[in-house]
Structure formats: C-alpha cells, structure tokens
C-alpha cells in the first residue's frame, strides 16, 4: 500500500508537473506522424503521469480519477486498433491499409492521417492502461482501491 505523500513541496510540484506531463504525452502522441514519438511513447508518458499522481496523491484521491478510470480500459485500445483495421478490411483493402479506410468524406491523404492517428491512439491507450495496471497491481491490494466511487480525503 502506498500512502499519499504529505510533503507540501511534493504535492505542489505534483499539481504543476502532472498536467504538463499529460499535455506532453498527448503532444508526443499527436506529433508522432511528423517527428519522433507516436502511440507507444505517448502512452508511456501518459502512464507515467498517472503513476506519479497515484504516488503523490494516493489511488483514491480525486486527483487520481483518471488513473482509476484507466483500470477499466483493458483491451479498449486494442478494440480501437482492430476497429480501424476492420474499417480498412470493409473498404476492400488489407488489414490496416489506410487507402481503403471507410470513413466518409476524406481524401486519401486524410485517410492515412486519420487512420494512423487512430491506431496510434489505440496503442497509446493500451500502453497507458497496461502501465497503470502494473503499477497498481504491484502496490495495492484489490480491496484498497475504491474503483466505483470517488472518496474525498
């Protein structure tokens, strides 16, 4: 069991660093098509920000609501990924052949753009969920996490 941290410095810095880390994670995810980055890296950064919030504020704090919600998301990213691939299959192409992505009113360049972005989103969600799940299952017993209700403390 990890106790919430009671140092003012750590908590204040947490308030500053965690949003920045999350923003950076999203940036890395979206920027992945133009430079270094992508779904996996973005997902790791997002997971790290959530693990940080668990370490500082505790799993049951209101600030860690995203991390708690993440634990329900097993396989969601995979379904996004398979869904995009499936849309390409329906369009008559191979799996993940974005030229055949069946999303209306997109030209071919945007098809590729949207297709890659969505699959990367799927990867990011899966990586983030896995990272948080590993951290939580290493540090908490199941009964210590109130998954359904937010406790204020």
């Amino acid at each position, binding site marked *: 069991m990890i106790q919430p941290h009671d140092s003012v410095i750590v908590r204040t810095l947490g308030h500053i660093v965690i949003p920045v880390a999350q923003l950076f994670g999203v940036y890395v995810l979206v920027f992945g098509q133009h430079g270094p980055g992508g779904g996996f890296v973005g997902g790791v950064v997002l997971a790290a920000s959530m693990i940080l919030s668990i370490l500082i504020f505790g799993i049951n704090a209101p600030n860690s609501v995203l991390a708690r919600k993440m634990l329900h998301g097993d396989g969601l990213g*995979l379904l996004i990924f*398979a869904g995009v*691939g499936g849309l390409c299959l329906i369009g008559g192409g*191979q799996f993940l052949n974005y030229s055949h992505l069946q999303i209306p009113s997109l030209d071919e360049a945007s098809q590729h753009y949207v297709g890659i972005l969505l699959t990367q989103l799927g990867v990011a969600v899966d990586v983030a969920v896995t990272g948080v799940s590993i951290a939580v299952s290493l540090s908490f017993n199941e009964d210590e996490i109130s998954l359904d209700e937010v406790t204020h403390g």
Partner: protein
Amino acid sequence: MSSNLPVLLFLVPFVMGVSMPLLTAKRRSWCPNLMLGTVGVMLLLSITNLRVVLAEGPIDYAFGGWAAPIGIAWLNDSIAAIVILTINVVSLISLIYGRVVVTTGLEKSVPYYTLILIMVSGLVGIIFAADLFNLFVFLEVAALAGYALVGAAGGKGLVYAFRYLLLGSFGASLYLLGLGHLYVATGTLNMADLAIRLPELLTSTAVASGLIYIFLGLSIKMALIPLHSWLPDAYENAPSSVTPLLASTVTKVALVAWVRIEYSLITPGVEVSHVPVLVLLEELGVLAALIGGSLALIQTDLKRMFAYGGISHIGLILIGVSLGNVTGFAGGMFYLINDAVMQAALFMIAGTVLHYHGAKTLEDLRGVGRQSPWLTGALIVVAVAMVGLPPTGGFFGKWNIILGALEAQHYLAVFAVVASTLLTLGYFLKIFSCWFHQPQFAESESLEVSGALRISLGAISVSIIALGLMSDSIFQFLLESVTSGGA
C-alpha cells in the same frame, strides 16, 4: 474478401477474446457459448481458406498494403491452411469437451475464456507468419496465454505453470537471440529473403549459432528431449478442460514453426563445419522418440504417460521432416496432423476418467472399462492410431516416414520408428490390462456420460478414422505442396 481470410482467422478469436468481458458483463453464462461460437466461425473460415488456397495456390498477405521486404507479410499456403484447419477442428472438439469436464470455479471465470481465444489466435499467427520476428511475437502471444491456462485452476498447477513460464521465456529469449544473429548477418528477417541469402552464409559462425539458438528456443517450446521437462508436470496439473487443447496444439505449432524455418533455410545435404545438419536433427528426433517412449512406459500416472507419448511423437515427426526427401517430409507433416488429433483424444480420455471416476493412476483405472462404453470405444480407436494400425492415420504417417527413411537409407530412423511403435504398444497394453480389469469393488452405478461428452468423444474418434481413410488424398496434397516448393 477471400484474400483477407488469414487476417480474419486471426482477428475473430482475438477481438472476441478481448471483448469477452464487455459482451458478457451482464450475463456470465454466455461465455462458453460465445467461445464455442467463435471457434465454430473460425472452423468455417478455415475450411473456406483451405478451398481458396486449393483453388488459387499460395497467397502472400501484406499488412497495410506494404509488400514483404518493407511491410509485415503472412504466407497463406497449403501447409498453413491444412494445419489451421486441423487446429480448428481439434480446438472445437476439445472445447466442447472442456465445457463438460470443467474444474469447479473456472466455468464462471471470464479471463479463462479470453485466454483460450487469445491462445488460439496466437497459434493462427504462428502458422501464417512469414517473417521470423512476427513468428516470435505470436509465439509469445500463444505461450503467455498457455502459461496462464496451465495455472488457471490454481493449486499445484500454479507452481508448474510458473516453471513452464520460466523455461518458455528462456526459450523465447534464445529464439530472439538467434533471430538477432540472423538479422545482423543477412539484414532481413523475411523467411523468403533469408532462404535466398542464407545458404551461402552457412559457413559463418554467427549464422550457424543463430540457427542453433533458434532451434534450442523452439525445442523448449515443442518439448523436444532433453528440453521436455516442463511438459509432463504442466499437463498433469493443468485443468482437465484445457489439457487436450494445450497438448494437441502448442507443441505441434512450435514444431510447425521450426519445420517452416528448417524447410526454407536448411537444404538437404548442407553441412556446417562437416556436420550434416539434417542428419543431426534426425538423430535428435530418434533420441526423442526412443527416450520419450521408454519414459512413457514407466509412468504410472495416466496423464504423464500420455504426455511422454506426445513427447516421443514429436521425435517421430522431427525424424520425418529431417530425412531430406519429400516422402519423409510429407509423412512427417501428415503424422503431425494425426498427432494433434490423437493427443486431444488421449487427454480427453484421461480428463474424463479423472473427472468422473477420480482415477489418476493406472491402478485407479480398474474396472473403468465396464462402466463407460463410450470412453472405452474412444480409447480403443486412439490406441489403434497411436500404435499405428492400418485403418487409422497413425499407420500411414509412420509408414511414409519409414519409406522416406528407407529412401534416404537411414536405417537408424527406421529402427526408431519401429521401436517407438513397440514402446507405444507396451504402454497401451499396460493401460488396457487395468482398464478391463475386474473392478476392485462391487459394480458401481453406470457412469452418466453426458451428451456433449459423447459428441466430443465420438467426433474425435471419427476424425482419427477419417484421417486414416482420407490419408491418401491428404498425403498426395502434402506431397504436391512440398514438391511445388510451397512449404
């Protein structure tokens, strides 16, 4: 749409496995039917796939439209199609059986069904994969699900599941190491490219050691003697409902993976520093066949006995595919298909006996034969097939391996096949002498074998005999696919 069959065969179980918790959140009782339905759909897809491959020849599947050297490729050829079909038939029958003989507590567990579907999808991936790294990924998908399934019932199974995990991960690391060697030496991991670039590089130590690492890694996965020690313990303690599935698919598919690598990379007569590679592999097969058979003979636990029987058959198949001629190769592959079906049948029988009679060892088996005619019938059919008598597929597989060995003039291999047949006969005699023994106690009430169990036992016996009756056409089909170079 027909060109997308391979990826559909993979996606159907994978997506269903992942969305199983969502779909059954309200109704847990849907899980088994959903799983059986998914495997049923896969069976239809794999039959269609076989027909498409027969009509159009091998199909390269390029993910995302990127062709092989850049993109990820799958190869959908006749061997892949027929092995996939076998795996689907066997999985469907074993899972119908698994619905009846399920350990208490498991039937309500959603992760259990998810794991089964993910393992099946991993197996499909291994068979289709046309590059070594892709193969590694699916090997791990299937193996990780397999480790969890072995320990699914908890208790002692967990210990052996952990041991399986350690050894399996070690095997996977060795495979990855070997793959790195080949990549450094050739700059490609695509099997077709490797087949072009590798033969002239076989003198290089890096390539030779890479192939050795890959072989060692896969040997652990396929439980080739002396790297078999995880298998009997794991299968003895795994839940009875999944052992037929595990026993009939996991080791066989690892062997198929090796056969693909061996067939495309190691041409007959090739020598690495004066060691003829194929002869070496064949002799490892001889060892496995003889030692596995002997170890099976001295077991007293039914499941362990069958597990060692399976280990000795892995040796037989390795002999067949390493003889360096098409007769032996096709015979080995045909025997592999048979072995998948026979292993499923054996573990279904052992599981049923344990579930209904509480019989684990040979001693406990006394009098079982009098109470359950369906079980006895299935046992007789599978025994005939394991020993290798004519009406069943086992005979034709062994026969062609022997013909291939005679053609290659490897008399040690002939001896090994015949000797392992005698060993098999030996341990089945042990089983039968207990099976038909006078019961220890007064005749208990007749065993109520439920309908689904009868269907699965009947279906597996019918498939064993059907493989024998259709052996000629299947063998010719395999022979053609080998001679046309599409393995």
